[in-house]
Structures are given as structure tokens and as C-alpha cells.
């Protein structure tokens, strides 16, 4: 796919063009206050990553799916009706490659081999994703160790990187190319520069794909490894890791109603909660935090790769590393798993 250049002087018109007929979401603010917000551009590139992952754009923490009336004079009382996907044409500028990869992993869950989730699909397909490559990784970043790259292209329509106070761009999909063609960006040959920058950024991160021993090992060997009780011991069971994870997609369906009617909604849920798997009978397949912590790491590093052609469910964004109140660091856990399976 071709590359393009946006000069500093044409940044304003570039972002102006992005907003034509759609809303532009871009990171605003810094540190813990960096969030995706509606923007008219130009977008400041001076941020590490958004505090929360961009999954909420496609999979809001609370999303109302269906609604019904109870009153007999309304049409179809006590019958659920669809509230629709609420999708609007959107372009996100500035998704980091780790998060874009995360979205592509969740996309295969929400649109799996048997079912398609219409609420996710509507929003996913109406959103163009422009990534921003990482020239200098943050201390908690480890995308390369998880098989990704600071210049990763998975899940993106366009990859951008800061260049001479302007932007370098590479389009990655026909929709992305059409979008960039509609702007003032000029074609340029940036292939070798991108290659060089990517190489440098990966080297700055430390070890490449460090956890291959996990991929090669047997599921049950990892599952039955001895370290899980120790790994789980400091866990508080709060689920912050799952709320911040770009690939955690679990949810709870809940009905809420009053005298007039009600809604069925889904809310983010977490496998760290005891209730998550508790049967009505009281039986619980994952009764203690040892099973629950194991589930989370096995899911990321073994179950998802089994289901998704070897792609790991952790993209190395580092949010859980920073957010875990007990400092359970997935890098250390993965290293322990790799060691246990060696």
C-alpha cells in the first residue's frame, strides 16, 4: 500500500478533511487524563497512550441492546425490540498499534465462526482506524515481546508516524486509501524510512518475542503448572486488569425495568469476580482466585492463540502492568509460564 506525506503547514486542512461526513476521535490530554475525545484537529501527538483502551468506542461499558414496554396500549407489550447499534461514521486518529491489534483480536470474538454481534459489527465497520506508530516506547511497553511492533499494522486502515512536525502515512486498506486520497496528503516513498524507524523502536523495547516456549507447550502442562498459587496470592480480585485490557471482552447481560417497561443491557464484566462463573446451584468451576488468575493469563497466552491461529491475546500495551494495585506483572507471569513449560 502506498505512503503519503502531510506537511506541517497542511496539518490543519488534513484533519479538517478527516472530519468531513464523520466524527473524528483523537486522544486528548496526558497521562491518566488522556482520553479519546471528539476533535476537529489538529491533534497533538504528544501522548504515550490513552488511559483506557479504545475498546469502549465499539463496546461501551454499558450498552443498551433491547427495550420493551409493559403497558398494554403500546405496540407489542412484553416483547423485546432492538435498540440498534448506534453506530455513526467515525474516524479514530492516533490508536496505538498495540490497541489496534487488540481490537482485531476482539473482532474475531464478536464476529466468530458461528455468530455475529450486530452492536459491535455496526460500530467496527463504520469506524476507520488511523494508528500512530510509537517512535519511543514507554517503560511499560512490550508489544514486540508479544509478537507485535511499535509500527504494527494489524487492525488499522492507516498507519501514521510523526515526521518533520508533520505526518508520514501508510495506507493499509482500500477504505484507508480512499480516506487519505480525500485529504491534502501527498504521495511519497517512505518505505525505507518506516523500516528503519520500526527497527529502532523495536530495539528500544528489549527482547523480541520472549515467550515462545508458551506457544510450543501443551495446554494442560501450563494449566497444571505449580506456580499458579504463588502467582495469584497477591491478587486482590478487583478486575482492573480486565477493564483496562484492550482484548478483554467479557460482559454481563442485565435487565432493568420499572412499571412502564425496561431495557436489556450489557455491562463490562470481569473473570476476576467470583460471581462471573458461579452456578445457580452454588457450584463454581473457578471457585478461588487461583483459578481465576490462571484463567486470565491462560486465556491471553494460550486459549486465544489456540483459537486465533497463534495470535496472542496480550498485545503488550502495558496497561495492566501499570494499573494492577498488587503489581502482578503479565511480563513476569508470562516468563514464569515460559519457564514452567520449558
Amino acid at each position, binding site marked *: 500500500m502506498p505512503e503519503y506525506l502531510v506537511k506541517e503547514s497542511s496539518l490543519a486542512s488534513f484533519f479538517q478533511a478527516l472530519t468531513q461526513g464523520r466524527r473524528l476521535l483523537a486522544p486528548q490530554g496526558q497521562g491518566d487524563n488522556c482520553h479519546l475525545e471528539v476533535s476537529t484537529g489538529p491533534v497533538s501527538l504528544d501522548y504515550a497512550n490513552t488511559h483506557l483502551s479504545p475498546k469502549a468506542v465499539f463496546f461501551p461499558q454499558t450498552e443498551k441492546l433491547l427495550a420493551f414496554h409493559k403497558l398494554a396500549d403500546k405496540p407489542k407489550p412484553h*416483547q423485546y425490540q432492538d435498540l440498534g447499534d448506534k453506530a455513526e461514521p467515525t474516524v479514530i486518529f492516533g490508536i496505538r498499534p498495540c490497541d489496534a491489534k487488540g481490537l482485531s483480536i476482539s473482532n474475531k470474538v464478536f464476529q466468530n465462526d458461528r455468530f455475529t*454481534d450486530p452492536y459491535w459489527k455496526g460500530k467496527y465497520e463504520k469506524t476507520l482506524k488511523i494508528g500512530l506508530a510509537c517512535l519511543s516506547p514507554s517503560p511499560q511497553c512490550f508489544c514486540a515481546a508479544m509478537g507485535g511492533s511499535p509500527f504494527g499494522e494489524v487492525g488499522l486502515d492507516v498507519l501514521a508516524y510523526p515526521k518533520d512536525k508533520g505526518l508520514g502515512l501508510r495506507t493499509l486498506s482500500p477504505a484507508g486509501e480512499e480516506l487519505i486520497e480525500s485529504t491534502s496528503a501527498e504521495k511519497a516513498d517512505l518505505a525505507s524510512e518506516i523500516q528503519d524507524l520500526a527497527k529502532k523502536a523495536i530495539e528500544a523495547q528489549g527482547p523480541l518475542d520472549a515467550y515462545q516456549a508458551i506457544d510450543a507447550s501443551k495446554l494442560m502442562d501450563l494449566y497444571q503448572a505449580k506456580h499458579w498459587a504463588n502467582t495469584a496470592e497477591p491478587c486482590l480480585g478487583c478486575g482492573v486488569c480486565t477493564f483496562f485490557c484492550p482484548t478483554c471482552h467479557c460482559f454481563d447481560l442485565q*435487565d432493568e425495568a420499572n412499571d412502564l417497561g425496561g431495557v436489556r443491557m450489557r455491562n463490562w464484566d470481569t473473570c476476576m469476580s467470583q460471581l*462471573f462463573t458461579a452456578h*445457580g446451584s452454588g457450584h463454581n468451576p*473457578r471457585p478461588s482466585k487461583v483459578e481465576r488468575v490462571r484463567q486470565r493469563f*491462560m*486465556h491471553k497466552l494460550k486459549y486465544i492463540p489456540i483459537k486465533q491461529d497463534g495470535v496472542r491475546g496480550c498485545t503488550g500495551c502495558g496497561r495492566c502492568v501499570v494499573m494492577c494495585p498488587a503489581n502482578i506483572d503479565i511480563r513476569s507471569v508470562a516468563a514464569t509460564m515460559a519457564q514452567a513449560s520449558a
Partner: protein
Amino acid sequence: MSSVNNPYMPYPVRIANIVVDSPDKSLRTFKFEFLDPEDEKRFEYLPGQFAELSIPGEGEIPIGIASSPTEKGYVLFTVNRVGQVSSFLHNMKIGDIMGVRGPLGHPYPVHSLKGQNIVVIASGFAVTTLRATVAWLLHPDNRPNYGRITFVYGARSPGHLLFREDWEAWQKRDDIDVYVAIYKMVPGWTGKVGFVPAVLQEICPPAENTAAIICGPPIAIKTTQPVLFEAGYKPENIIMSLENRMKCGLGICGRCNVGPEYVCKDGPVFTLAQLNELPPEY
């Protein structure tokens, strides 16, 4: 958006009948009729699949389908009163409107078992999807495709035996062997007495070219397996249905997984050979 393509949309149904199934009233069998006859065609299923019973304002519960697709005009579900939704459902009346969402999961592999003998082993109220299976197998369209069929069913007391009319009718047929047992003798009972594994041991059909389909509480499944092994059954030919807490039924919401497999989407039917390779999280 067309609701036909939305797997979260329940089909509206009317409660056509309710049968109280156990002396303590904890089990009721609900007969639903689709409000839109077209929905019945869309709800195309096979024995072993389940559906989410959806009560507006209360929530959903995943329940195995107790009727067989060969029975037209309605679907049957037997519901144990356990939590909020099932308790609410138990208080609903004939004529009430609610929803059924499905069919979900994979059925028992009845098509790939063609030409084989089948032994169906049911304990307690898990008999529901097996009742559907036997009804399906005995349908004139299907019966010729299978060899010998054996149905073993046990429950606590005669009052806890579901679908009495069905199995009494099957007992009169000569193309199925029916063994119904209660766990403890009560006056007036003329059938077998004992737990399902003991009954099975007594009458277990030879393993050759035979598949066993088991459904029941974990303890019954666990104690039945040794009997089958002893009779020479291989893990590939022991077929079971799992239960886990579920919400979406679509393999998305994440809670019912057993290792990489989602019970709702990839199950609930697994062979013992498959389960032997998976974490025991069920």
C-alpha cells in the same frame, strides 16, 4: 436493523401450558408457542441444543430443549427453580408473553451416529434433552437409520420421574429397551431400583459400534464413566453435555469457557475424549 440477524433478539412466545413435574414443585415443564409462526421455522434445532428463556425485565436462563424437532407447533423446556429468573418464570401463567432465544450450542451428533447403536443415560431432571433425543430417534423418519436403542433413566422417586407418558409409551415398543429406575424403593413401584450406574452395569449393551450419550449432575456423570469403561466403551464414544454459567450463548461474553472452548458455542456437547484434553472447569 433486522432483528432476524440479531442473535440477541428473543422470539416472542406465549406460554401454552405449564406442567408441575416434581412433588416439591421445583420442576415445571413449560410449553411455548411462537407468536409468529415464521419464527418456529427460524427456530430450527436438533436434540441436545439449548435456548435462552428470556423474561422481559428479569433476564435470561439457558435451558436445554426438551421437545424434539419432530414435534411441531411448540417447544418444551423443563425449568428447575433456582435463581431469580427461574423463580419468576415459575410464577408466570398460561397465556403470558415472554421470549425464547436460540437455538444455541451444538446438538448431540445424531447424524454422524447413523448406523450405530445408541445408549442414552439420563439422571434426574437432566433427562430433558435426552427425552428430545429419544423422541427424535424413534420418529419413523429416523428410526431405521440406527441400530439398537437403549434408554436408561433414574430419578430420586417416582414423583421425580419426568415425561412419564413418553417413557411408558416407549416401554411398550419393541424397537427400544427402556430401563427406568428410582434410587430407593417405595411401595407400589414395579420398575428397577438403584442409582443409574448400578442399573447400567446390569444391562449395559456391548460397546461394539455403540455410542453412549450421558446427561446428569456431575456426580452421576463421574460414576457412570467407570461402568462404560468396564464395558469397553472408548472416550470418543462417550458423549456428554456440559453446563456452565452462561449469558450471551454466542461465545462472546466469556464466562462459560472450559479452556479455549466455550460451552455455549462450541458445546455444550463434548465427547469424553475432548474433555480429557481440557481443564476441568465445569
